[in-house]
């Protein structure tokens, strides 16, 4: 295994696969903060050249955290589909990139290797791709999931309705919910981040959303994004929980900082098998985001793209209905500006899809990051073109509880119109029956909450 490359007569050598992966990353403030990024643009390209020569088998054999030190490394190894892996293990990362981009490599073929792709492989090939490469490859991947409705079909673009409220005022949540539904949002989930993380408030919000769904016969699912332990207790309070949520990270230690481990997630999944209110077979919802391991000092010297892919390795065990990267949420110390946030959104979408996950993206910025509203609008369109499964949606993109800027109710029908994509078919039919929209075409009742009861 050669960990070196020569550029203009100067040989750049690297000490480990982990170092090659980190230095091959495009510039990210979080990698600078962790002290793992390339010294300069030339060393970055040298790392990419070295990476391009490694085989997928070598990447699998060298996870960025050794299995004996980390439960996520062990979980990935335990869950890997050996026959899918066998089809591509001999390829170098550079050859794997070319195979993915080849016209003859269809979505179906990509799907057949998805469960044999380890996080390090997904992250490795991602680092050799340009933004447009990531969009071409991402748009080819087909990941279809089903709960109360069907997400990820070709030609569809869904959205999470995120009617957060700073005091969990249920009436306030419902005002935002109705408004969002009237713009065609909410086919992925109506999901609330609660201000108060208690089983009682979780159950109360779920019942309120469940009521509005039943009253209007809306084919979607509801979820309250409290901690998984809180949701498990809420299940005992007899509430309609369609999806169970949890934030995930790419190392055992980072997940511990989230208050979870593999055993707990296994338990939560088993509980939902029996107690959920939804159809399934997919019913878990996970959120991730580059930088979430470093923020708890649990990055083990690895870069944030590879750690992000490892969170997908964890997510994959539970056949989730939704996974999304909250791409600009953690702050400029991890993704400094518009170009870094844009790049990360496209990377995360591609890596998740390649690994077989229904990837959505919360295209967003905090107000201390250097990203303009115009750049954020651009990212939403890029994600729509790249085949992103779903975007978020909230009133004017302003989360009044979490204080950041994301996708708005208005953006969802706008992006659908621009990229000619429809909501999930069941939800599309419901929207058409209310005159809100049909496919990507707005109807005469778009934005009219009086069509809801």
């Amino acid at each position, binding site marked *: 295994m050669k960990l070196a490359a020569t550029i203009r007569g100067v040989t750049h050598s690297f000490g480990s696969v982990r170092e090659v992966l980190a230095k091959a990353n495009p510039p990210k403030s979080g990698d600078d903060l962790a002290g793992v990024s390339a010294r300069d643009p030339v060393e970055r390209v040298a790392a990419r050249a070295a990476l391009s020569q490694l085989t997928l088998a070598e990447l699998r054999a060298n996870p960025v955290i050794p299995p004996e030190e980390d439960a996520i490394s062990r979980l990935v190894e335990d869950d890997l589909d050996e026959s899918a892996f066998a089809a591509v293990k001999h390829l170098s990362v550079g050859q794997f990139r070319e195979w993915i981009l080849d016209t003859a490599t269809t979505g179906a073929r990509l799907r057949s290797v998805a469960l044999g792709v380890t996080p390090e492989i997904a992250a490795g090939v991602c680092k050799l791709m340009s933004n447009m490469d990531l969009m071409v490859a991402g748009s080819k991947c087909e990941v279809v999931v089903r709960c109360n409705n069907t997400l990820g079909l070709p030609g569809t673009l869904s959205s999470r309705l995120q009617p957060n409220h*700073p005091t969990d005022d249920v009436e306030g949540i419902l*005002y935002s919910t109705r408004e969002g539904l009237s713009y065609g949002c909410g086919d992925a989930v109506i999901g609330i981040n609660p201000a108060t993380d208690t089983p009682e408030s979780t159950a109360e919000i779920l019942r309120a959303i469940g009521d509005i769904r039943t009253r209007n016969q809306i084919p979607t699912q509801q979820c309250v994004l409290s901690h998984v332990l809180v949701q498990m207790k809420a299940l005992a309070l007899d509430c309609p929980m369609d999806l169970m949520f949890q934030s995930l990270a790419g190392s055992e230690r980072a997940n511990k900082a989230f208050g979870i481990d593999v055993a707990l997630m296994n338990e939560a999944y088993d509980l939902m098998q029996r107690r959920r209110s939804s159809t399934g077979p997919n019913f878990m919802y996970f959120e991730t985001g580059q930088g979430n391991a470093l923020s708890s000092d649990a990055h083990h010297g690895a870069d944030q793209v590879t750690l992000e892919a490892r969170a997908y390795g964890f997510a994959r065990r539970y056949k989730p209905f939704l996974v999304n990267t909250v791409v600009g949420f953690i702050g400029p110390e991890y993704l400094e500006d518009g170009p870094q946030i844009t790049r990360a959104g496209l990377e995360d979408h591609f890596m998740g899809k390649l690994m077989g996950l229904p990837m959505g993206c919360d295209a967003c910025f905090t107000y201390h990051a250097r990203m303009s509203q115009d750049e954020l609008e651009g990212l939403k369109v890029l994600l729509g073109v790249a085949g992103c499964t779903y975007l978020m949606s909230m009133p004017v993109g302003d989360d009044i509880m979490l204080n950041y800027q994301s996708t708005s109710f208005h953006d969802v029908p706008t992006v659908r119109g621009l990229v000619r994509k429809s909501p999930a078919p069941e939800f599309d039919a419901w929207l058409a029956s209310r005159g809100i929209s049909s496919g990507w075409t707005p109807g005469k009742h778009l934005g009219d909450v009086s069509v809801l009861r």
Partner: protein
Amino acid sequence: MSLPLSRTRDLVAALRRARDADDPMPPRERLPPVPLPPQRVFPSPRRRSRLAEAAAAHTTALVGIGAVGTRYATDVVLQFQAELAVAHAAVATQLPAQWADTNQYVSLVSRVADHRQFLLRPDLGRRLSEESAARWAATCRKDVDVQPILADGLSAVATMGAGPVLMAAFIAECEARGMSVGTPVCARFARVWLQDEIGQLARAKVAAILLGERPGLGTGDGLSAYLVYSPALGRTDGNRNMMSNIHARGIPPVDAARRLAVLAQLMLEQRTSGVELDLAPRAAELGEAARGGYRAPVARARLVEV
């Protein structure tokens, strides 16, 4: 063998004439004057819709704002851009180097060199510069119950706004409860955890840092307060108690000061802070602060009048 260019042009022109049209576009339509669009709803008392009116009793989310096609009406765009500008301006504002001296605080600075580094290197914003640390250790009042610290954090606008009032009220509330208070200090380029080093050098039992919080849309003037018992390098978020949204439209500084003093007293009584601190004995006095991450809603103000 290629034809001369003039010959090619003649051929193309002849083809167009044969189609009866030189202009590739269809003839232009003559439009009557475009009717004025209906006035769009917006949460101003004069003009808001019944829906927006009813919603405003429950939420500050901008709902009932209608749409033009699938986009926002012009007044919504302007309001939104004004809110965004307020937030960005708050982040970009720096605390002047002389501000602490002018306001009679001991002036300290973290290891951060400039504003961009402040945003990108939270680790440097958590430690005092060598000069500041030495000067603080040599001159501060030691072995106090409470060390009050004012800091810029992510909004110097908030620090310079309600900061001095909150600081003075907090000190007075602590002294009224019999606690000894350390030398009032103001730190630049400061993150929350800077309280650990400042408090440790003063051998304070409790360190309280009051600093500008991350701005939200239209709200760049909020302060947050973090208190930690037995401040020392290595404390984590689990060791701290916090109160956010301190400003005139949220928790007024005078109310916040009283609750923070009660919180400090509770820490002295129980000799701990953070997740281990039992807030129940003083829940009534602490009010919303006893509820952890609670953030009171902020009324949304119309920012643009034309």
